[in-house]
C-alpha cells in the first residue's frame, strides 16, 4: 500500500468519520450539560432562596419580636402596674404617660392599657376607634388568652394586634394592647434590607405584601385571589419558597426570586458552554490535523525502518531528524536507540568471545586438575599403600631375621657338642648316660635340645606361615591398589545412596540366601544425593555386606540372629547408611588396620574394611564401627558430610 493511498485513506477516515462523530458527541454533551447545568443552577438558586428565606423569616421575626418586646416592657413598668391599681394614678400620670407613647417605626400604632376584662383605662390615641368594638376581632378570646398569662399576636385583615398581660404579683391583672394597620406593618418591614425581592407575610386569613414586588401582585381585580396566586409555589416569573416564622404560629413568609435573573445567569452560562464546545471542536480539528500529519509520512517511514531492523537485526539505520518537531524528536529518539543497540550488540559479541575463551581455558584447567587430583590421589594412595606395605614387611623382616638368627643353629651346635661328648664315651655309653653325672646331664640336655628343636621348628613353621600371609597381604594390597586405582577416572557425581544400597543388596542377596541370613533395608524418603565416586561407594557397600555375612556365617549364630539390617539416613549432619547385625568378629579399635595379626577369619576382608575407610574418607565421609553392647549387635555407620556441622 502506497503512502499516498494510506494518507488518503486516513484523511477519509478522519474527516468523514471521526469529526462527524466528534460533532455529534459534542452536541450531545452540549444538550446534556445544558440540561444538567440548568438543573444545577436551579438547585443552587433554590438552595440560595432557602437560605435567604430563612434569613428573611428571621428578620421579620425579629421585627415582630421588637413590637412584642415593646409591649412587654411597657406591661412590666411599675407605673403601668400602679395605674391598674390606683384610680388617682389613672387620672394623674397614666394618661400623660400613654399619650407620650410611640411604638418604634410604627407611629400610628395605638397602645392601650386595659383592665382584666379588656376595658380601656388609657391609650395613646384615645380619640381613635376603640378596637374593642371591631366586630372582626374575637376580643373576648384575646383577653381570655392574655389573662391566662399568654402574649397574643394576631394578624387580621387590616389590623394587627399584640396583647401582653400586665402582671402584679405574677398574676395578670390587666393588659397592654398594641394595634396597628397592615400597611403600618409593611412600613416597618420595608425599612429593612432583604436578600430577596418578593416577600409576603401570610397566615390563613391574610397575605401581607412587604416588598414592592409583592405589592405589585396586589394590582388585580381580586386582590385576595391574586395574592393567593402570588404565594403559590408555581409561577412563571418567580421561584418562591414559603417558610413558617418561628414562634409565630400560623404565620409564614413567602420569598421569591425572579426567574429572569436565573435565566440571565443561565444564558451567560450557556453562551460559555457553547463557546467551550466550539473551542473544543476547533481544538479537535487542529489535533486531528496534527495527528494526521504524524500519522502519514513520518509514521510510515518509522514503520518501514523498524520492520527492516527487526528483520535484519542490523541497527545501522538512521531516520531523518527534520520536519515537525514531534517527528524530529521521535526520529532523534529512535536514532539514539539504534546507536545504543549497536553498542550493546558489539559488547555482547565481545562478551561471547571472552566467555568461549574462558570456557576453553577452564576445561583445560579442569582436565589438568582432574589428572592432578587423580595423580595426587594415586600418589597419596600409593604412599599409603607403600607405607602399609612397609608396615607389613617390617615384621616380615623381623621374622626373617628371626629365622636367620638361627635359633636352630644354636640347638644344632649344642646337639653336635652333646654328640661329640657321647662319642668320647661310646665304649661305656650305657653306663655313661645312666650312671655318670655328666653323662646323665648331657643326655638330658640333649633331650631338651631335641624338644626345643621340635618347638623351634614349629615356631619357624608358624613364622613361615605368617610370612606367607604377609606376602599374601602385600599381594592383596597391590592387587587392590591396582583395582582401586584402576582405569576408572576418579571423578565424583551426585549419587543416590538409596539406589546404591538397593543395587548392593541385589548383588549380595545370593550369598545371604546361601547362608540363610535375612537382609532388610529401610530407605529414607527424600534422600539428598551425595557427591561421591559412585563405583567406589558401591564397592564399599559390597565389601561391608560381604564382611557381615561372612561374620555371621562363620560365628554360627542362631536363626533369630541371622539378620542384617541396612538403613539410609539423611540428617542435618550428613547423609549415609548404617548396617546393623548380630555378627561379631570386629574389634572397632583395630578393624580398619591394614594387616590382620590374629587368627581372624579372612585377611582379605579386613583389608577391605581398610580400603572402605580409605574411600569413604576420600569422599569426605566417615566410617564408624561400634558395638551395641546391650543388644549384642554390631553397627557400621558410613556418613558423608554435607557441609553442615560435624556429625554427632
Amino acid at each position: 500500500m502506497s503512502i499516498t493511498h494510506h494518507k488518503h485513506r486516513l484523511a477519509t477516515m478522519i474527516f468523514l468519520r471521526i469529526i462527524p462523530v466528534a460533532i455529534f458527541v459534542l452536541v450531545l454533551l452540549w444538550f446534556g450539560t445544558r440540561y444538567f447545568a440548568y438543573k444545577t443552577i436551579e438547585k443552587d438558586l433554590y438552595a440560595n432562596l432557602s437560605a435567604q428565606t430563612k434569613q428573611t423569616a428571621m428578620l421579620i421575626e425579629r421585627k415582630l419580636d421588637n413590637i412584642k418586646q415593646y409591649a412587654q416592657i411597657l406591661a412590666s413598668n411599675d407605673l403601668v402596674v400602679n395605674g391598674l391599681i390606683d384610680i388617682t394614678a389613672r387620672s394623674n400620670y397614666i394618661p400623660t404617660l400613654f399619650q407620650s407613647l410611640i411604638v418604634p417605626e410604627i407611629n400610628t400604632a395605638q397602645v392601650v392599657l386595659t383592665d382584666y376584662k379588656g376595658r380601656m383605662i388609657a391609650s395613646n390615641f384615645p380619640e381613635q376607634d376603640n378596637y374593642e368594638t371591631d366586630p372582626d376581632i374575637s376580643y373576648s378570646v384575646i383577653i381570655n388568652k392574655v389573662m391566662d398569662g399568654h402574649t397574643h399576636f394576631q394578624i387580621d385583615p387590616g389590623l394587627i394586634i399584640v396583647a401582653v398581660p400586665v402582671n402584679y404579683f405574677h398574676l395578670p391583672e390587666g393588659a397592654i394592647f398594641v394595634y396597628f394597620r397592615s400597611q403600618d406593618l409593611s412600613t416597618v418591614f420595608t425599612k429593612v434590607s432583604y436578600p430577596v425581592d418578593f416577600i409576603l407575610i401570610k397566615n390563613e386569613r391574610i397575605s401581607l405584601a412587604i416588598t414592592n414586588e409583592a405589592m405589585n401582585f396586589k394590582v388585580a381585580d381580586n386582590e385576595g385571589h391574586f395574592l393567593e396566586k402570588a404565594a403559590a409555589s408555581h409561577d412563571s416569573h418567580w421561584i418562591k419558597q414559603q417558610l413558617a416564622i418561628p414562634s409565630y404560629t400560623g404565620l409564614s413568609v413567602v420569598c421569591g426570586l425572579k426567574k429572569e435573573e436565573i435565566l440571565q445567569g443561565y444564558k451567560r452560562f450557556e453562551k460559555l458552554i457553547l463557546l467551550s464546545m466550539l473551542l473544543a471542536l476547533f481544538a479537535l480539528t487542529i489535533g486531528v490535523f496534527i495527528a494526521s500529519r504524524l500519522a502519514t509520512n513520518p509514521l510510515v517511514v518509522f514503520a518501514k525502518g523498524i520492520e527492516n531492523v527487526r528483520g535484519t537485526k542490523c541497527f545501522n539505520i538512521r531516520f531523518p531528524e527534520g520536519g515537525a518537531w514531534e517527528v524530529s524528536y521521535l526520529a532523534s529518539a529512535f536514532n539514539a536507540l539504534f546507536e545504543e543497540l549497536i553498542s550493546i550488540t558489539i559488547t555482547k559479541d565481545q562478551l561471547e568471545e571472552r566467555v568461549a575463551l574462558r570456557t576453553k581455558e577452564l576445561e583445560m584447567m579442569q582436565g589438568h586438575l582432574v589428572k592432578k587430583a587423580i595423580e595426587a590421589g594415586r600418589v597419596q594412595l600409593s604412599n599409603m599403600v607403600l607405607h602399609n606395605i612397609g608396615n607389613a614387611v617390617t615384621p616380615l623382616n623381623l621374622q626373617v631375621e628371626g629365622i636367620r638368627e638361627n635359633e636352630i643353629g644354636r640347638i644344632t651346635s649344642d646337639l653336635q657338642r652333646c654328640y661329640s661328648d657321647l662319642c668320647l664315651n661310646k665304649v661305656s655309653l650305657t653306663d655313661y648316660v645312666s650312671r655318670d653325672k655328666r653323662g646323665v646331664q648331657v643326655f638330658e640336655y640333649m633331650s631338651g635340645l631335641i624338644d626345643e628343636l621340635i618347638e623351634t621348628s614349629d615356631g619357624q613353621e608358624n613364622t613361615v606361615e605368617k610370612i606367607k600371609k604377609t606376602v599374601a597381604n602385600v599381594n592383596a594390597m597391590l592387587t587392590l591398589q591396582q583395582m582401586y586405582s584402576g582405569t576408572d577416572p576418579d571423578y565424583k557425581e551426585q549419587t543416590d545412596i538409596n539406589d546404591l544400597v538397593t543395587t548392593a543388596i541385589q548383588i549380595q542377596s545370593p550369598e545371604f540366601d546361601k547362608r540363610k541370613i535375612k537382609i532388610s533395608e529401610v530407605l529414607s524418603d527424600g534422600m539428598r544425593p551425595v557427591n561421591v565416586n559412585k563405583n567406589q561407594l558401591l564397592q564399599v557397600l559390597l565389601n561391608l555386606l560381604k564382611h557381615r555375612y561372612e561374620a555371621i556365617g562363620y560365628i554360627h549364630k542362631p536363626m533369630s540372629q541371622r539378620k542384617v539390617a541396612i538403613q539410609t539416613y539423611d540428617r542435618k549432619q550428613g547423609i549415609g547408611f548404617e548396617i546393623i547385625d548380630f555378627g561379631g568378629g570386629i574389634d572397632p579399635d583395630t578393624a580398619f588396620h591394614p594387616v590382620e595379626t590374629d587368627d581372624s577369619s579372612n585377611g582379605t576382608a579386613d583389608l577391605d574394611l581398610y580400603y572402605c575407610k580409605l574411600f569413604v574418607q576420600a569422599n569426605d565421609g566417615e566410617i564408624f564401627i561400634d558395638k551395641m553392647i546391650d543388644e549384642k549387635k554390631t553397627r557400621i555407620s558410613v556418613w558423608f558430610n554435607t557441609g553442615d556441622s560435624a556429625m554427632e
Partner: protein
Amino acid sequence: MKYMFKKKVVFFYIGIQFFITFSFLSLESGRVLAGQTILIGLDADMSSGSAQSGIAIKRGALIAIDEINQQGGIAGVKLELVVKDHRGNPARGIDNINEFGRLTNLAAVIGGLHTPVVIAELEAIHRNEVIFLCPWAAGTPIVENRYHPNYVFRVSVRDEFAGEFLIRKALERGFTRPALLLEQTGWGRSNEKAMVLALNSLKLEPSGIFWFNWGIKSVTKTIQSIKKADSDVIIMVANAPEGATFVKAISSFPEKDQLPVISHWGITGGNFYQDTREIIDGIDLQFLQTYSFSAPVFSDRNKKFIAQYQHFFPSAVSDFEIFSPAGTAHAYDLVHLLAIALKRAGTINRNAVRNELEKIDEYNGLIKDYKPPFTESRHDALTEQDFIMARYNAKGYIVPVREDK
C-alpha cells in the same frame, strides 16, 4: 249551698294569692322566706400579694357566722359567706361589688385589703346600695367619702389616726427626721396627708417623701436617696410584696447604715415574714397593729375565740399562729355587729340594716367594747387608742412590742 261553697273556694284561692304576693313583697322589702340563707359577701384579695389578709378576714367572718348560726341565725335564717377574689385589683373589686349587688338576699359585703380597691369600689357600693363592712383598709377617704347615705362601715385603722400614731411612735423613740416611704395610691396619699399634718403640728418636717409604685422591683436608689436626705428612720406605708422588697434592700447595706423602719400594718397582710425571714432579725422593724391574740384586752373573749379558731383551723396550735390577727378580729366583730343590725332591722333590706348599724348602742366585741361602734356621722369603730405597735419575733409571730423578750 253550692254558691256558698264556691265563694269559700274563691276566697281561699284569693287568700293564697295574697299570701304568695305578700311573701314576694316581703322578699322585695327584705324579708327572707324560710329555707333561704342570708348572704354575706366577702370581697378581698384571696390569691395575690395580700392573700393572707383575705384568708384571715374570711376566717374571722366564718367563726362569727358559725356562732350566730349556732344561736339560730337571724330569725331562724342562717347566714352564709360568699367569697369573691379581687386580687388587689380595683377593676375586679368593682365587678365583684356589682355582682354582689345583684344578689337579692345579700345583707352586706365585707371588703379588704386594699384602700385603692375600696376607694374604686365606692361608686359601685353606693350605686348598688351594698353595705360595705371594712375590716382592713385604712384610707381615710374610704369612710370619709362624699356619699350620703354612707354605706361603708369600718372596724379598722383609719389613716388619719394611723399617720399621727406612727409619727408619735417615731418621736417617742427619739427619731426626728423621718423619711416617709409611701405607695403611690390613695392609701399612700391618705397617710402622707396625716403624717405631714402630724409632723407640722410639732413643727417638724419629714426628711423627704419618697413614692413608689406597686410592683416596684429595684429600690436601692430610693433607699440611697433616703439616706442622702439624712433620715434617721423610715416610716413606711407599703403592702407585703413592696415592703419585703424595701426591707431586703435595707438589709443589703452595712449594719451601721441600716435605718430603722416603722411601718403601717400593710406588710402583715401577705407573706412578708416568709419573704424576709433570713434577714428580718437584723432589721429594726415595728409596725402598726390593732389586736394581739397573745395580749388581748379581754382574755375571756379571746380565749373563747381562740378555742373556736382552733376548732375550725386546727393548724393554729397556739394563739401566735393566728396570722394577720387584725383582719380576723376585725371581721369577727363586724359580722357580729351586722347580725345585731339584721336582728334589729328584722329585714335584709340593706337600707334598713344600714340605718340600724348606726343605731347600735353598744357591743362587747373581741377587740373592744363598742360604745357605740358607729354613729350617723362616724362610721369608724376604732380610734388611736386601739392601736399598738408590734413586731415579728424569732419564730415569725406577731407580738406586741411591749412583750418582746
